[in-house]
């Protein structure tokens, strides 16, 4: 497929804006915590694919937009814009500016789209806007949604979320709330958004810890755009790890080791082999502390920990490495937060990709976005603004049965320098028998009605 053809496969873009239904108020400000400001150079990109059905056929753009007005009433900071206080510290002014909606069409069918085998497998790129905050911060929406209709029915919902607003748990809770409002469910009883206490934090962060923590990299931004430049070209790919594979990898003696750690160890080993001397022997593990199903909180609650190895990860066995990771995780969250200056919110940081980052997204209810009972058949998830060391996201796979998450398959999304990806694919397939996420049988009814 030529590049030109790729660009025009999505066409008929129409841009509009959706605002909250009622006036939020004069000069309502949403303060940003230190953790928010650390994450500000990252952007979450999600694409939810919905099969053709009676429901998706009958949806009009007005149907999609109407619940958003009440939704934005509840989650009003999403509709705000970045401003700077007098000291220079960024905050969100809840001025009801709204979120951007893009409607588009695709020349291919959903089945063809999900079967695409392109070298970088960035099929999700065209279905979600790749905008960042800035250079005009005052007029940059923080959230975008793109609705793409496939030929012969089916729809993709692209969801772009600026990390400064909240972590992936918050973002997913929010969009799931929209799904519920769309399906006609009444809004949650208490509509108050919990605005975290910024003042209490700032009192505690005066003492700086002397050894510089390692999960983050300080960067210098060029211009006003909130995106850190990469020295290497990054690309994404996704792998599916089926339940049987999981069972194989997790023998009896390691039942207490979480699946996420085993998967992280596996990928770390492979990357260590690929990177050889360039490998940094360090990795960051990211977990989210926001509660699932809690749509009232928009914040960044991350637990970042680092693992330092004495020698390259390639030298360890899989299970050995996994146990090591569990034992040696050192929680660095506090010291990370203390890095940010209270006054002006400087300096600028990159968290994902400062070191090789493994992100535990297993608890995130991606398939909880239901349109009148219809769940997505597939969800692609990625993060933009990842540093050169790369990031690995471990996500839920689609639920095949009604069982709880422990036996589900996992989807692993890797964001790495382009040249490493091909090698990683080969290694994973040869050593562990893990195939790329291709040729999914999208006709499987995934807990449809």
């Amino acid at each position, binding site marked *: 497929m030529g590049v030109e053809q790729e660009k025009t496969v999505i066409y008929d873009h*129409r*841009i*509009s804006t959706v*605002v909250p239904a009622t006036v939020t108020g004069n000069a309502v400000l949403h303060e940003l915590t230190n953790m928010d400001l650390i994450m500000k150079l990252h952007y979450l990109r999600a694409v939810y694919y919905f099969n053709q059905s009676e429901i998706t056929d009958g949806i009009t753009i007005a149907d999609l*937009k109407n619940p958003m*007005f009440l939704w934005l009433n509840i989650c009003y900071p999403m509709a705000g814009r970045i401003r700077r206080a007098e000291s220079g510290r960024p905050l969100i002014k809840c001025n009801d500016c709204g979120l951007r909606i893009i409607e588009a069409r695709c020349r291919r069918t959903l089945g063809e789209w999900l079967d695409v085998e392109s070298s970088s497998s960035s099929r999700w790129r065209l279905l979600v806007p790749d905008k960042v905050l800035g250079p005009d911060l005052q007029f940059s929406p923080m959230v975008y949604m793109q609705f793409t209709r496939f030929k012969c029915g089916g729809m993709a919902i692209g969801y772009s979320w600026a990390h400064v607003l909240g972590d992936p748990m918050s973002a997913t809770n929010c969009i799931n709330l929209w799904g519920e409002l769309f399906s006609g469910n009444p809004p949650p009883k208490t509509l108050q958004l919990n605005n975290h206490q910024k003042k209490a934090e700032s009192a505690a962060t005066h003492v700086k810890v002397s050894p510089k923590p390692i999960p983050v990299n300080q960067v210098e931004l060029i211009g006003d755009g909130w995106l850190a430049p990469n020295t290497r070209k990054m690309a994404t790919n996704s792998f599916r790890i089926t339940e049987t594979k999981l069972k194989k990898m997790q023998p009896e003696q390691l039942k207490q080791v979480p699946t996420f750690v085993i998967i992280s160890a596996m990928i770390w080993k492979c990357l260590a082999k690929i990177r050889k001397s360039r490998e940094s022997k360090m990795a960051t593990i990211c977990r989210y502390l926001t509660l699932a199903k809690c749509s009232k909180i928009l914040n960044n609650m991350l637990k970042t920990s680092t693992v330092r190895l004495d020698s390259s990860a390639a030298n360890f066995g899989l299970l050995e490495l996994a146990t090591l990771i569990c034992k040696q995780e050192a929680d660095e969250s506090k010291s990370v937060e203390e890095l940010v200056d209270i006054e002006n919110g400087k300096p600028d940081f990159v968290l994902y990709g400062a070191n090789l980052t493994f992100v535990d997204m297993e608890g995130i209810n991606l398939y909880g976005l239901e349109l009148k009972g219809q769940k997505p058949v597939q969800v692609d998830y990625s993060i933009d603004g990842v540093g050169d060391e790369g990031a690995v996201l471990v996500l839920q796979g689609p639920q095949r049965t009604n069982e709880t998450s422990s036996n589900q398959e996992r989807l692993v999304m890797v964001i790495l320098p382009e040249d490493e990806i091909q090698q990683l694919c080969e290694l994973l397939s040869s050593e562990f028998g893990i195939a790329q996420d291709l040729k999914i049988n999208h006709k499987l009814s995934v807990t449809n009605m």
Partner: protein
Amino acid sequence: MPRAPLPEFSSSVRLKYVKLGYQHLVDNFVTFLSIPVMVAVGLELVRRGPQEIVGLWRALELDVIHILCSVFVIIFVATVYFMSRPRPVYLVEYACFKPPSNCRVPFSTFMEHTRLINSDEKSVQFQMRILERSGLGEETCLPPANHYIPPHPTMEASRAEAQLVIFSAIDDLIRKTGLKPKDIDILVVNCSLFSPTPSLSAMIINKYKLRSNIRSFNLSGMGCSAGLISIDLARDLLQVHPGSNALVISTEIITPNFYAGNQRAMLLPNCLFRMGAAAILLSNRRRDAGRAKYRLVHVVRTHKGADDRAYRCVYEEEDAEGHTGISLSKDLMAIAGEALKSNITTIGPLVLPMSEQLLFFLTLVARKLINPKRKPYIPDFKKAFEHLCIHAGGRAVIDELQKNLELSAEHVEASRMTLHRFGNTSSSSLWYELNYIESKGRMRRGDRVWQIGFGSGFKCNSAVWKCMRTVKTPIDGPWSECIHRYPVHIPEVVKL
């Protein structure tokens, strides 16, 4: 030793009583004149005694025929008099369209869209300045097509907007009055800038299945004052057709009229015009007199189109790049002032009490004959009306009128608050303002309302209504959810 000058307070109090005495004397002149005459006649009768009066009656020598003829003459004259009086026109009820929250346009969104659509930095800054000083609030609404970047005006979208606003207003009116669609005799629709085929009146007839012998009229191109023109037309028709009712729809369709260019004179409508519609039910049936809200007293129309300057002051044209827009000239305010003066000169004698008219006349004579430099006397229209509805064309219009007519803040409150909550909804804005006054519980039986509309042409139209029954709050209407928040203080410049 010269006497100390009287303190200002007591002299102003004395002046006030002098003025009051003068007004009562002149306004009730006829009464004051007739009282001494009646007293004199009464005294004379008493003096003469009943016997003499009976004797006078006998002396006239009237027989039956004379008496019968006189009686017939009196009855005949009375009948001719009553038949030739114009039929009263009642406003039974009216309903305004309440824009849904999914059409809302906050300031920040409007500015962001303008920046994304307009490439010229100067016109973006200009629009920002207009918006800051416009007097609009954060809840005004634009139709769905205008929420796109760039706006997406199609015929279908325009029709959809027309159906949304007009049918909502009519449904509301039907619900309030129990009006049966087959009962409507006359239909007048005015919408200046959108004129499809078949017309909007045909669209309404089709939707509500109105009678085949309905008298329908569709007025287009007549600007923001067309609402009162429709009322005037309906009134004339109701004089000719006895026992009828008329449905009048006033609206402006925003979708097809977004200006996509950069000419400053044409950017103002983008910033000010918003969605709105009103449906009014008029009737000349006697049985509706009991339940009607208002009675139409006067309609005065003034057209300054004969003057070239006035004709060109609101002009639709294409700019250098081919974008169509409505160009507003710089002397719009001056022309509006002149048109208003013209209108007032006609309406003044119809509504002002005698005291004001006499003063005005004497001052006029004094200016002409004695001293041309003497300030003209501006009649106090506050004495003629309890409520004022000034077309919410923009903050400048309301400010100008407030200054010219020496109105207090309360008089123009309805106009300012309508501009804040709904924006400039063109011909229907007068009805939103009337609804504001009713929602505030200020409308009492016997109150007189003056509606003033301005529009392209240049026209200034006035209508005077008299309230027939006190309107009890709370009322169901576009203000029902937000009236408790009003009036709000509107700052001179809103910080965006």
